[in-house]
């Protein structure tokens, strides 16, 4: 293993633990302002959107269609695994049909 990979992984572990214990620690010191609390609440969704946006909107029609299919299945069934499998299937199919 490369030493900078080890540094990255240990760094990830340290900041993760800080976020795990930090909430309880901070709340016993100060109460976050409503605006800060709102910002924290929006982070998971916004980060996920930022991650998928380039793949969904700039890769091509197969990826965009598969993204739509994935979300429809997730909305209808609430089943993440099934949605993922359908998304992969649609990408696979469309890439073979329209190479």
């Amino acid at each position, binding site marked *: 293993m490369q030493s900078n990979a080890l540094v990255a992984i240990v760094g*990830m572990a340290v900041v993760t633990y800080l*976020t795990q*214990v930090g909430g309880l620690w901070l709340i016993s010191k100060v109460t976050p302002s409503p605006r800060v609390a709102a910002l924290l609440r929006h982070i998971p969704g916004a980060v996920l959107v930022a991650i998928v946006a380039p793949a969904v909107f700039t890769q091509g029609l197969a990826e965009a269609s598969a993204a739509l299919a994935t979300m429809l299945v997730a909305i209808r069934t609430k089943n*993440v695994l099934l949605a993922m499998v359908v998304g992969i299937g649609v990408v696979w199919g469309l890439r073979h049909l329209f190479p």
Partner: protein
Amino acid sequence: MQEPVTFTWSGALLGVRRSLALILSVCTYGVAFGVIARQTGLSLTEATLMSAVVRAGAAQLVVLGLWSTPLPVVAIVLTTLLVNLRFLLMGAALRPWFARLSSLKAYGSLCFLGDESWALTMHELTEGKQDAAFLAGSGLMLNIAWIVATVAGYLLGAIIGNPEQWGLDFAFTATFLALLVGMWKGKATLAPWIVAAAVALVCAHWLPGKWYILLGGLAGSVMGALLDAK
């Protein structure tokens, strides 16, 4: 008077038992992480070590998007921090029970805090069961499943071969899209998500590397906070 908060083996075992139903969903992400980690070029040791010591699924999957040569260590650690900031709120929500434990028990079991273990624990504690060891039992169980699934996914990836041939490069995007559906909170989510997507697309086009994740995520979150304040 408040009921006393306990911290017992039977509480931890209850956490283990209640987590069994969630093992399948954790394993799905674990296998996906293992497959994508292999695709990304991590060694089996690196992928397993990351799952063993970080134990934060979303952050680990996101970091794979940043993993490249030379390794952007600072971006990786900062992104992990950003993705995991939600744990601060979850930990804060545990205060009514965990503030009454010794520091060792409280901060020791918080290292098992995850989305699933937190949700189960909050359910249990608000139902009136006052055993805070539930979190450690639940988290430990799900962490073990996560590590085992990572290894399984990594080795399964070896059998599958070129993942693009099977559309498996889309697994990452598809998993996150499915997770996103669960985070939709009605119209209040729309504007922050549009801003996050727009900023991410602009940054992905104009900036090197994967900074679009951090910048798009921050822009969307700030937008959400500004709208909520109105």
